[in-house]
């Protein structure tokens, strides 16, 4: 792919980061939760 203007690259990188966050956030929740315990009572 040819070189893009800087604003376009920043925009695409931002969207890609958003997609990565959207994809990894649900993975992050159970991983973090696995280090906690539930206290009854």
């Amino acid at each position, binding site marked *: *792919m*040819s*070189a*893009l*203007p800087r604003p*376009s*690259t920043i*925009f*695409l*990188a931002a*969207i*890609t980061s*958003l*997609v*990565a966050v*959207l*994809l*990894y*956030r*649900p*993975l*992050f*929740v*159970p991983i973090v939760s696995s280090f906690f315990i539930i206290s009854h009572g």
Partner: protein
Amino acid sequence: MSGAGSTHAAERRLSQLVTVLAFALPVVFVLVPLAIFLVYSFFSVDQGTIVHSPTLRNYVRFFTDPIFLPVFWNTIVLCVSVAVICILLAYPAAYFLTTLKGRWRYALLMLLLVPLLMSYVIKIYAIRSILGLNGFLNKALVALGILDQPSTLFVFNMNAILLTLSLLLIPFAILPIFLSLERIPQTLLRASDDLGASSLQTFLRITLPLSLPGVASAASFVFVLAIGDFLTPQMVGGISGFTFGRILYSQFGTAYNWPFGAALSVALAIVVIAAILIGERFGRSRGTSV
């Protein structure tokens, strides 16, 4: 000489066997079950027992009952929306990947595909916790001042299904779009540059038309996966998030009406086949018209 001849004959027999197996496996495991479902859809149920005499009652019920057609239509609209959201997010991401050089391109691609390896059910539970009243999304929107108080807009309704399916299926859209973008000949892009076209013109007149086959494949792929899903609506849909997959599930489960479930499956299969054919036809015509 006869030894060489017998070796050739054995090789021929082996290749024939492999060919027969290659055709037999899809026939036995895909076409035969579909044919059985088609046959079942013409049967009926009487007091919990399947009556093996052909009838069109199931199809008449599907088309005349006020519940099924609206749910069917709503599910199609929902899945088209999921496909559109996935394409809108996946296209820029895939495009960005193709602008990267060397191993970074494939490393980042792998990074975006890795979430597929995690359990589907766990991801749905995690997304439900994000969309819930005390979830991350509500907290973020309240913190940003967009909402005054946490909203139930994102969980146990159609919005929740839309968001969850979109999050789950984005990787399935990224891959075909990435492959179609990567296959665009660099010489075309360089020629466009040499002829004085701007980046936007090059994108609109070369990159976008040539990547449309990948977009069409991604859209039909996401649509087919979304429309057949019953687990996501079951887990995040609540009472108001009722989709066709849930009706199908109930017919084969609690209602124990396999013939009617089979008739609904046939209707769903027709939509799925149509989506695949439209995606394939659209992709091929756009891909060759440039």
